[in-house]
């Protein structure tokens, strides 16, 4: 390390990222991929500018000095944009090793055999399907971080997921789909995707698919909706989580001027958990972030009041708030950005049946394909499985539709919160880089816009 560097100005990360992806379509293994990527990166903060450099992790680590020098030189090169007073970055230091105690990973043969077993079972049990897909994925990050403040840590993220999709035809012959995902910490050996575990889920998905054969279009416009837990988790992440990332706040997200003000029903509390929920490790446990900041929970909404934002060291300094451990980098060649970890709306007291019974005319929204939101908190989610609610009872299935609205308006309209919590970590959050996150929530009842006729 250069002797010209003072404390808190340099972090160096060794990062290994391993993944497995297997996709079986109708018995054909169309994807059978294992990857490993290792890299060494350094980031320096000099005279108000950041410099970053990375290279493949060479045997023996001989490139460490060069990568650190490059990072420093890059930071200094930005001096051509003028002098800038350095921010007083908060002092942070974490020493520790994060371990994962999981089962022995499945072999490729074990995965292939189980996929074939599941496909054969589906083919026999659901002969009318047009297609069946099973996607397996796992992902393992190991990050060794050393900081010039004395931080020395090993952080691990290990997650796995199994997603299945049943494809059929509606009454007009058009393709329709229903999918389900199981996700968890660890490897594919730690998530139960055995036939015994999946059979009831497959049967339920097949029932939904049969209902979708005769699905009707939703009525467009403002509707009373019961959002099943996966949609509430998506709402937490996309619609309110992103506008509470401090870099978005500094940019002018509407949340910037709402701190301390009511932005949701008093029934709604929302937290970005660092590593523990209800005494158990979260699906994406972050004990220390990629700047070396010990991670802590961020309560963003407390009984309807906007109470906090998620920070890196830089945004914490800019907004004169404490750092929260939300600076995360996805790949070995990425610099840390402000990212969520395990974002959730906290559970309430109602059962799903009670919430449905309280709706005279509305919709139950069960599954979402993806979601987007922006700085105004206006969000859009694709809804891939939904039912009418008429007189407090479920009615006909609804064709794929879109849920949208202002998250603040929607959360203010919440009049019931479910008591069953659901966590999921199957996909990625996108924001310049990918990121592994989890999202959680109970069911919510609210008013929001549905796309339709």
């Amino acid at each position, binding site marked *: 390390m250069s002797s010209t560097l003072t404390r808190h100005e340099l972090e160096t990360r060794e990062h290994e990222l391993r993944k497995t992806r297997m996709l079986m*379509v*109708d*018995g*054909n*293994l*169309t*994807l*059978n*991929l*294992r*990857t*490993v*990527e*290792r890299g060494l*990166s350094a980031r320096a903060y000099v005279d108000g500018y*950041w*410099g970053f450099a*990375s*290279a*493949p992790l*060479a*045997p023996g680590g001989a490139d460490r000095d060069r990568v650190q020098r*490059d990072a420093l030189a*890059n930071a200094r090169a*930005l001096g051509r*944009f003028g002098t*800038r007073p350095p921010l007083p970055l908060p002092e942070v230091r974490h020493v520790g090793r994060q371990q994962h105690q999981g089962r022995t990973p499945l*072999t*490729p*043969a074990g995965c*292939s*055999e189980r996929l074939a077993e599941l496909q054969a079972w589906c083919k026999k049990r659901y002969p009318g399907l*047009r*297609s069946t897909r099973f996607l397996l994925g796992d992902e393992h990050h190991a990050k060794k971080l050393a900081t010039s403040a004395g931080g020395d840590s090993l952080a691990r993220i290990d997650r796995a997921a199994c997603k299945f999709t049943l*494809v059929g035809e509606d009454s007009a012959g058009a*393709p329709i*789909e229903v999918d389900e995902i199981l996700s968890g910490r660890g490897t594919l050996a730690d998530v139960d995707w055995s036939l015994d575990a999946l059979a009831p889920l497959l049967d339920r998905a097949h029932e939904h698919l049969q209902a979708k054969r005769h699905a009707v279009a939703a009525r*467009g416009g403002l509707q009373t909706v019961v959002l099943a837990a996966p949609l509430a988790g998506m709402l937490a992440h996309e619609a309110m989580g992103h506008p509470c990332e401090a*870099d*978005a706040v500094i*940019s*002018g*997200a*509407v949340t910037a*001027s709402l701190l301390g003000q009511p932005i949701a029903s008093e029934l709604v509390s929302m937290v970005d958990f660092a590593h523990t929920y209800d005494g158990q490790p979260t699906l994406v446990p972050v004990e220390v972030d990629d700047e070396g900041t010990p991670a802590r929970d961020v309560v963003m909404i407390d009984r309807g009041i906007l109470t906090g934002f998620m920070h890196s060291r830089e945004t914490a300094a800019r907004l004169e708030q404490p750092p929260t451990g939300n600076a995360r980098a996805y790949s070995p060649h990425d*610099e840390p950005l402000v990212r969520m970890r395990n974002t959730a709306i906290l559970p309430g007291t109602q059962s799903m049946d009670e919430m449905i019974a309280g709706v005279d005319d509305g919709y139950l929204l069960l599954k979402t394909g*993806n979601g*987007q939101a922006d700085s*105004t908190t*206006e969000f*859009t989610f*694709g809804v891939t499985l939904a039912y009418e609610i008429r007189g407090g009872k479920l009615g006909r299935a609804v*064709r*794929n539709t*879109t849920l*949208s609205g202002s998250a603040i308006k929607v959360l203010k309209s919440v009049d019931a919160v479910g008591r069953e919590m659901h966590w999921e970590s199957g996909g990625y959050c996108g924001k*310049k880089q990918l990121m592994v996150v989890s999202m959680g929530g109970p069911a919510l009842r609210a008013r929001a*816009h549905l796309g*339709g*006729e």
Partner: protein
Amino acid sequence: MATDTVNDLPATAERVLAQMRRRGFDGAQVSVSRQRRHELCVAHNEASLLRSTQSGKVQLVGLLDGRRADTEGSELDADSLDALVNGLWSSVASAPQDAANAVSAGQRASVTRGPQQADTAALADAMREVLDWRAAHAPSVMLEEALAGHTQIESCALTSGGSALQCALGWYDAVVFGMARDGAASSSFNYAGGNCHGLAGEPLAPRFGMADMLQAMARSVHTAPIGERFVGAVVLTPRAVASLLGWLLGQLGDQPLIDGSSVYRAAVGQAAASPLLTLRSRLDAPGVAPFSADAFSLAPVTLLDRGTLKCLTPSLYGSRKTGLPHVAVGSDGWDIAGGTTPRDALIAGVARGALVDRLSMGRPSASGDFSGVIKNSFVIRDGQVGTALSETMISGNVAQMLRDVSAVSTERIDTGGWVLPWLRVEGLHFS
């Protein structure tokens, strides 16, 4: 990547291919690449970070008795490559047999294109010009992120079927992302960007539609819902057109063809879009790889010729699986031919509708049905662009939208990977 291999990618690929043959694979593909990138990043309207990264990748496909497995690694030292080959051997042995598995044969090409060395001073000058342009012409815009970068990739792909493909590509790119503010009010975020072969000759800010997007963003802080339900027309900007094309290209590829969900499975030779639409590949564009992932050298292809679907695009595997003709395509590099109607005339022809820059929606279904919120968009009444819109949704069917294109602009935006015009589409449901 170990220093003894980075300057000799073909030799490394040859060595690994030989190692795979010795291990017992009866078919193999080896792709070795090295990437260098320099990137100047802006945060909150100020230069913030300069990045320089080097990464390597080796991708192996192994076939054994009709079984297939893939692996990727980032290191090319002997021990790492041994581990990759051994892991691949373990994976392939347990994969199911599938007669469609194969690797390319007889493909030969070598392509060098674009600037191979980064000019970091030029990157800084270009970004300073963008920042100055914003301050002068769109001062209410906050660039949450922006970047100007240069990428250089060298790659070599060999197969046991005798294919040998090499390329060295270099290009510059730029992206701006942000929102506009007026007091406590803010616009929706938006972004624009693209790739080019050089930064000299013309300012960066107007390229890729970036300046137009930033100025439109500044006009869209204060919004109103469209407030009524009706069936009307949209004028899609090239960014919105890209959403339609993304769905179309997906429907022509492997998965929907194999599982039978593609609505175009039997539509070759038929009218799949308006006769105003011609869509063809653009293989010489900056940043566009001239080879497919399964090691085929790409030939020019026309997908839509005045609305007629000319071919599907299954990979080698998809072709052998479905019996459809193999057509190798890349993920980027597409061009919709410009039309004969000036952009202003496209708008003038809309009695009731919207100018749409971004479609925020769930993934359209396999049938093409969608509904989505139109973002960064403006109302059109009697041919005049009015106020910016909020909470306005349109619904329709993407396949039908492609058929309902009623006018194509003469103007186009060139982002490198795409060259697209504005399109007017009739018959969308507003709510």
